[in-house]
């Protein structure tokens, strides 16, 4: 069984949008996804019916808001296979989730002489927090390289991860190449060496089934806005025993048990890591986004994307002047395709396609070292989601051909 794209499209009001005269062809899903009306309605419902600050409130709306807020946490926990809802911490986005680990766990556990291992496919948010932790602590940052065909070099990983390694961090799906990495094996390597693994699920959680218990990872992060949810909310999941041992990072209301001027004691999980009034509405809407995806079935979401990616790879590789960065075979690969045109700079291509209603992303995709490793400073990127069709892939390919002709004039 796969998903009913026409039915799904009807749930996304923005897909009615026209850019100039042209219907919107939204292929920038790796940057952020669109939202179904169910998610948008959840926000309206919250603000028109039971908006109130959570926890501590005795009045009805506060109780309702608290229940919905915590129910959303439980939904996310289930969605990623986490057994304890309290191991799910709300953050602003995955960037904050990674910073939380790098500061709270990192500053307490990483010291001079230790090694931090990242991959060549990390997003800036998965590079710089660790690089800065390395600078703060005197640890060394080591990089698992990519192979020529855009895969992680697992042989190199076996050498790079060693007894000095304290933590390994890896994207489960590359936001540039679309490669799906074997983070389970990386986790095994980390654990064999007494290290932890943080899995960056920014691009995987929206597009494929994720089970943190099966992956046997220690931390997992995601951003709701890339998976049908609102902007401004993300998640850090961590093994409860790790989270319990970690010092809090941000201080303020809600994360506190008791305060005097001399000292404070910390609330239990997950609140210890959630300072101040949380993003209540967006957390609740994230629960609805997760409901939407769960109802489709993440296996089916994945199947649809394999299909559309296969078609897109076939059509794009037919274009002589186009070169795809990363894997062109459709195995272990998600719906993200970065490419360059020999004659048209990605920036010009992006502007031109936009005039045809086709939204792609261009630039370094917040992964400068990876993009530069292909000896370019920028690339065009098309990325797909549940509402995209092969007809939209055709529009992209025809668009590229027209732009090609335009720049030959």
């Amino acid at each position: 069984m796969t998903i009913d794209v026409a039915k799904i499209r009807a749930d996304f009001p923005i897909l009615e949008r026209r850019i100039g005269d042209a219907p919107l062809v939204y292929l920038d899903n790796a940057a952020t996804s669109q939202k179904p009306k169910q998610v948008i309605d959840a926000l309206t419902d919250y603000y028109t019916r039971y908006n109130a600050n959570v926890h501590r409130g005795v009045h009805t709306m506060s109780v309702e808001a608290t229940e919905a807020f915590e129910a959303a946490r439980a939904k996310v926990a289930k969605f990623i296979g986490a057994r304890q809802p309290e191991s799910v911490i709300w953050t602003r986005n995955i960037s904050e989730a990674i910073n939380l680990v790098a500061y709270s766990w990192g500053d307490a556990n990483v010291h001079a002489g230790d090694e931090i291992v990242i991959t060549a496919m990390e997003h800036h948010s998965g590079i710089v927090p660790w690089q800065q932790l390395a600078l703060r602590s005197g640890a060394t940052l080591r990089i698992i390289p990519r192979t020529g065909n855009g895969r992680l070099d697992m042989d190199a990983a076996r050498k790079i991860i060693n007894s000095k390694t304290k933590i390994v961090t890896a994207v489960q799906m590359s936001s540039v190449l679309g490669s799906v990495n074997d983070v389970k094996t990386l986790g095994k390597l980390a654990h064999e060496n007494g290290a932890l693994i943080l899995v960056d699920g920014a691009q995987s959680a929206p597009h494929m089934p994720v089970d943190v218990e099966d992956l046997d990872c220690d931390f997992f992060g995601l951003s709701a806005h890339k998976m049908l949810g609102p902007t401004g909310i993300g998640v850090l999941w961590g093994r409860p025993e790790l989270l319990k041992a970690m010092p809090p990072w941000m201080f303020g209301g809600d994360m506190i048990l008791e305060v005097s001027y001399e000292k404070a004691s910390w609330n239990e999980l997950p609140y210890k890591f959630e300072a101040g009034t949380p993003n209540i509405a967006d957390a609740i809407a994230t629960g609805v986004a997760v409901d939407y995806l769960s109802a489709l079935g993440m296996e089916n979401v994945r199947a649809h994307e394999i299909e559309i990616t296969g078609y897109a790879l076939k059509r794009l590789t037919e274009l002589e002047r186009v070169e795809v960065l990363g894997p062109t075979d459709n195995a272990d690969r998600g719906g993200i395709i970065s490419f360059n045109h020999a004659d048209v700079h990605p920036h010009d291509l992006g502007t031109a396609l936009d005039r045809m209603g086709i939204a792609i992303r261009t630039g370094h995709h917040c992964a400068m070292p990876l993009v530069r490793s292909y000896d370019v400073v920028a690339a065009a990127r098309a990325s797909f989601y549940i509402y995209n069709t092969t007809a939209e892939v055709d529009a992209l390919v025809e668009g590229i051909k027209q732009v090609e002709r335009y720049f030959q004039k």
Partner: protein
Amino acid sequence: MMGGTSGLEQLDEMYESIILDHYRNPRHTDPLDHADVDVEAQNPFCGDEIHIQLTLDDDGKVQEISVSGRGCAISQSSASLLSEMLEGKDVEQAMEQITLMRRMLRNDNMTEEELDQLGDLVALEGVKRFPVRIKCALLSWTALEDALQERKGK
């Protein structure tokens, strides 16, 4: 079919033929061994790169020019147009042109005279209708401005 074709005609506003010509055949690209002004600039958002080198004579007039880089049609053609603009100008005059260029892209009211003064550079005027691309057009100009201002400061 999706993605109508009509849209591409609007591109003519930005990609004037003179722009595409400068993009394909950039002027003054040979590097200089020695330079009085030497500045590199990058647009971190799109990765565009520009390298400008100048020698000045005793009166502060531009003598030799080298402008090179990689990036989109707008940033590269604009840099090439800048290199032509610099021919025979002194620092004061170059600064004036930079100001005019900025104003044109900001859609300030420009007099006929001012537009005349910009010469070929007027080809870049259409960029103002593509706000995200204005940074591309200004990349080399801002870099040069900073470098000249710093020189003046010394």
